[in-house]
């Protein structure tokens, strides 16, 4: 918390070329591995009445209160099947840690910078706003999630 924001920013600006991956519905996402603080099983949440609907609740992460954002709702995707519990992917942002609720956690992948491309224009606007680019992997596309924009709920609200 007390970390100097400037150092935090420069820390966050670093990229490792490695991505922690996860699934939301049939989309395959990646977040820079340096950004990921930890991955947790579904935690007990405290609901926040009157909060924006993408916010699932608050979790206690060893004394730190972390907001959990449901990625399905954030991306305007249909809700998860009833028996499927989401996973917490806790990412560090300029505003502290935020947990993204995703369907499933994937591997950490090394990607080849040459396969990078801007996000396709015809992507759903809700998702496009949050995606920085796409890596064309051999068998699928890895969407690079912009964590800062994802946790900024003002982004994509107008769309």
């Amino acid at each position, binding site marked *: 918390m007390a970390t100097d924001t400037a150092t935090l920013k420069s820390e966050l600006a670093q990229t490792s070329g490695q991505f922690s991956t996860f699934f939301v519905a049939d989309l395959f996402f990646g977040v820079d591995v340096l950004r990921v603080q930890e991955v947790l099983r579904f935690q007990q949440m405290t609901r*926040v009445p009157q909060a924006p609907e993408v916010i699932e609740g*608050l979790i206690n992460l060893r004394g730190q*209160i*972390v907001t959990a954002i449901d990625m399905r709702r954030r991306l305007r995707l249909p809700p998860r099947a009833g028996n499927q519990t989401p996973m917490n992917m806790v990412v560090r942002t300029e505003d502290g840690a935020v947990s993204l609720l995703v369907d499933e956690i994937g591997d950490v992948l090394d990607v080849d910078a040459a396969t990078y491309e801007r996000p396709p224009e015809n992507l759903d606007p809700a998702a496009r706003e949050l995606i920085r680019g796409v890596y064309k992997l051999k068998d699928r596309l890895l969407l690079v999630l912009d964590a800062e924009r994802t946790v900024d709920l003002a982004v994509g609200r107008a769309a």
Partner: protein
Amino acid sequence: MQDQDVIREFLVESHENLSRLDQELVELEKHPKDAALLASIFRTIHTIKGTCGFLAFSTLEAITHQAESFLSQLRDGQRELTPSLVSLILETVDATRKVLASIEASGEEGPDRFEDLTERLRVAVRLTAGPKGECGPGQPGPGGLPGPAPEPSEDSASPEPAENKNPGEDAVKPSAVADANIRVGVGLLDKLMDLVGELVLTRNQILQFNTEREDAALNATSQRLNLITTELQEGVMKTRMQPIGMVWNKLPRVVRDMAVTLGKQIRLEMDGAETELDRTIIEAIKDPLVHLVRNSCDHGIEPPEVRVRIGKPPQGRLTLRAYHEGGQVNIEISDDGAGIDIARVKQKALDKGLLRPEQAERLSDREALNLIFLPGFSMAETVTNVSGRGVGMDVVKSHIEKIGGVVDLFSRPGEGATVKIKIPLTLAIIPGLVISSGGERFVIPQVSLLELIRLEGDSSEKHIEYVQGTPVYRRRGSLLPIAHLNQVLGLKSAERAEAVSMVVLQAEDRQFGLVVDGINDTQEIVVKPLGKQLKGLTVYAGATIMGDGRVALILDVLGIGQRSGVLAESRDQARAAAEQKTQSGIEQQRLLLFRAGSFARLAVPLSLVARLEEFPQSAIEHAGGGQVVQYRNRILPLVPLRAVLDSDVGDQAQTADPVQVIVFNDGERSLGVVVDQILDVAEDAVTVRQKTSRTGLLGSGVVGKQVADFLDLNQVIHAAAADWFQGTGGSANGKRILVAESSTFSRGLIRSGLDMAGYRVREAANLDEVIRGLEQQPVDLVVTALDLPPDGSSALLAAMRRRPEWQAIPVLALVDSAEQVQARAGQAEGFQDCQPKFDREAMLESVARLASALASADTAPVTAGKER
């Protein structure tokens, strides 16, 4: 008091410096050519010398001055360092220590002037270029071996070597100040605070276990843990406490500089500088305080010649006061200057476009004062280096509010102004009451809590009464408005319990009851901030972690009160009004209450009122068969309201002098309605509407728990000044508007606004009536409420779309609040526009726009359709 602090700080700092000096000098003996080391030693001595001079410690200054000259020679390479010179410096260091010890003990330098040492230093300095023969301290040849055994000089033989080995141990008593103070990184303190927070939580958890088990040993241990934790918590909190004087210290200088720059005479008085506050809070109020002080100097206190002219002493007085009160710290900044010129504040706000003229006229003095807190507001005529950049009071306010504080402004014209800041002692750990509602747990800060009320069985129904749908509770004879937490937060309500639990809360100066499902217990909680995603929610002040490790939300009492509507007047009222945001809920609006004739309580929406005036009877003249007054270079027709309402009474002579007049504006023209007495301005949810057939009245409703009759301005004006509407120019004239709204009251309001703007208005209460209305007569524009019965306004749109002749008619949708306008903006539903229901200006503007668009497009299709 302040000098003491300065000296204390000087002592601590000097002791630190001297300890370093010891090390550095020993190091220097090994590397006599190390320039960086020499420079550092020189700097240290120089610093001590400078401060001594400042604090008027002449002995110390003399010693350090000689040592400094001597060191500067060494630094500049004019002479070489020998062990005996090192001894001389060390001797200086020890002498300095002795003097410091004496200052610490008695505040004086002590009797020993160290003349001998000073003299020897002087000699050493003079010797630089001269022969070495007469050298006093020792006989250091250039070839003298560097070593720990310097040749003692004849007169100060014994103490030197001893102190060399054990500096500060035998000759000088260790400094109590230096030993009693350690400089600790703030980061470490913050970390400790966090850990103590965690410990408090764990303690709570263990205490909870303890109540479940009947184990004597565990009981005793947990009691001890409880005590120790509490004590530890207090201790750690104290480490972070600092006197507010820390911030105030720099204010005398600020004031002096300001006074010189502005050519004023200002005396600064400070009271309560020892009041302690948490470090984080001290940090947060530093800038706001400086800003407020500058403001007082710049805008408050008058130049001496002005002061003398108005009979004040030429020297202005600025008072800072800090004191504890009820777990909070109050800080007051007051001056005996001119106070705040409300008219000028309004004018400035108008000039800056922060306010519209008609709003300005409506503002109360108190609200006008609050304009100062608007972003971009500045009273300065020109931008100077002192002030006038328009970044000011809004920043002050937001800074203070960020730490849970409140800023209040009081002004006594001609006598001065006071800014009162209330801030919490600490932000980290607060006592709170845990309650449950809708299956969730919440915490209410104890500061806002007044009492708990439990109503059992029948009494619950007996004691909660409904004043036209608004629940109130009789608490020791006075009525307490009630809100239900489940409703405020949109939680599901529990099934009817046999008892009702209510917490009585204080938000600013208001009280209200909050009904919750259950009251659990009180706990020390650690306040943790919410992520930025949740910052917009005014109902929460933060979150905390409960004994069981789960997160609970901390309620913001003020936010809850405002959201539920029990605290009608929010502290951001002026700002909200200026931004023309309808933040209040459905049908909540400000009403002007007044009395006329046999009607003791009449109401008219304040938004229609241009201003309130008093005219002496003598000013009333008769013209054109009616009463008029000359008003602002115009003729203002007067309508005696009692004559209109009590038509049977007839036009009685007005006995009141001066007469009370409500002025209504419509663009160019004004009209005055004469009433008997202005009662109040109420902001309230209008709960009941009963239509009457009486001329001049719309109906009645409950305002502020009492029934009031709503004036039908339209009818009043028509009845009394029929020709008022004639000659209304502009596009408005003759346009036909159909108002579709189920609420008679709302419809009346909308209608009166449109009527006054010169439109021809017809009303419809539901879809059928709209269709009928459209069929009967052509209409240029339809204004509809979104919730038009039976199926909402979309049904109306669908119906209109089915008839080709109606397709071209623009439809304006009215929603309950400004937020809804935004929400609707995204999804075009076929309306030409969407506006908040009670924002008359916005509605009229929209109507005018739609109507003029229509005029250019020609109204032909409508009439053509009619003929088809």
